[in-house]
């Protein structure tokens, strides 16, 4: 951003909402399939988060820029086509520049097309506002998604392989908890995060009630 922004400007709010109170994974529960499928190592999680953010930024900008020219009857089809185009770009860039990551993520890169976060933002936000706000919102949603992926994949890699980004952290005497990098570990990690959030919400509500009494 070339202009310094006050923390309360709408652009910043658009960005911040995706990161916190409207976090796509933890609050809206969108895009769960890629969240769990590729979060068995921090590297995969980071790559998936960045690829999705790229597609989100490009497609939100384009959807917002051409929003006056798309008749509303065919808007979903047009959005899907725009998204699929950028996903193909991301897929080819990854395959050319980072063949190892591309191989590890496999079909989950093309599957970004059906990530409900992207179509959801195009339909609920980008198709209704100007390109600048759409970009800010996409950046926030992308950052929120990447943050969620980093949290889950970091937890799973740390417990499941005893390492972070491939570097051994917990030392040679740590017995890897292989369960965590297998499919059930994904469900369990997200379940634990939801339980923790539910516990905090309940505690806050109880405290508010006690203060009132």
């Amino acid at each position, binding site marked *: 951003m070339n202009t310094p922004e006050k923390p309360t400007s709408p652009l910043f709010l658009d960005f911040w909402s995706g990161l916190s109170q409207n976090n796509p994974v933890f609050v809206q529960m969108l895009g769960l399939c890629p969240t769990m499928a590729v979060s068995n190592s921090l590297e995969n999680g980071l790559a998936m988060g960045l690829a999705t953010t790229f597609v989100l930024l490009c497609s939100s900008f384009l959807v917002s820029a051409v929003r006056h020219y798309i008749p509303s009857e065919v808007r979903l089809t047009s959005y899907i086509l725009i998204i699929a185009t950028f996903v*193909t770009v991301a897929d080819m860039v990854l395959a050319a520049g980072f063949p190892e990551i591309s191989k590890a993520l496999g079909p989950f890169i093309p599957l970004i097309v059906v990530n409900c976060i992207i179509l959801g933002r195009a339909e609920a936000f980008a198709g209704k506002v100007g390109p600048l706000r759409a970009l800010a919102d996409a950046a926030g949603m992308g950052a929120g998604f990447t943050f969620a992926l980093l949290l889950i994949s970091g937890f799973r890699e740390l417990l499941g392989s005893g390492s972070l980004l491939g570097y051994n952290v917990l030392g040679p005497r740590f017995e890897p908890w292989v369960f965590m990098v297998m499919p*059930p570990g*994904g469900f369990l990690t997200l*379940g634990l995060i*939801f339980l923790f959030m*539910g*516990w905090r919400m*309940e505690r806050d509500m109880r405290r508010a009630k006690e203060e009132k009494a």
Partner: protein
Amino acid sequence: MNDLAWIFFSTVLVNNFTLAMFLGLCPFFGVTSKVDNAWRLGAANTFVLVITSLSVWLLNTFLLAKTPFLRTIAFIVVIASTVQIVEMIIKKYLPGLFRELGIYLPLITTNCAILGLALFQTTRNYNLIQGIVFAFGAGLGLTLALTLMASIRERMDVADVPTMAKRMGLVLVVASCLSMAFMGFAGLGSQ
């Protein structure tokens, strides 16, 4: 024949689309509060999966051999139109079923299980018969996972659980246990 049976059982049980490969989680968490809805949605998905498998085979064999970079776009367009056609056919000939499925029918388009099937079928080079068996197995596996989850959630509704687990937390932990149970099938078909 042996090969076909292996594809079928490995897709239904060992590599279950929902519980082992995380495809189609949206309906898995969204629609599984009632057993009736769960298996109906599973049946509709199976139908779309089989038709998609057929169309993807046609596309791969006759159109996309020289232009593999168009795959993602071509697949999603074919899936969207397939769902639309299925919706129209069911509406015309089976209006009762159409009313019962309601909004779930168009939502099948954005179910990643369908696009996932198309992509896996392509990367594994399945022929027509293998593809259809694969699609049928995937649909059956999806229906199985949806129905199991819905049955458990119906029981959970009447159970007394702590407030902090009332929302999605407990559902995800239960999904983890289901997924763990399905890992037990891994010994069935190790290739």
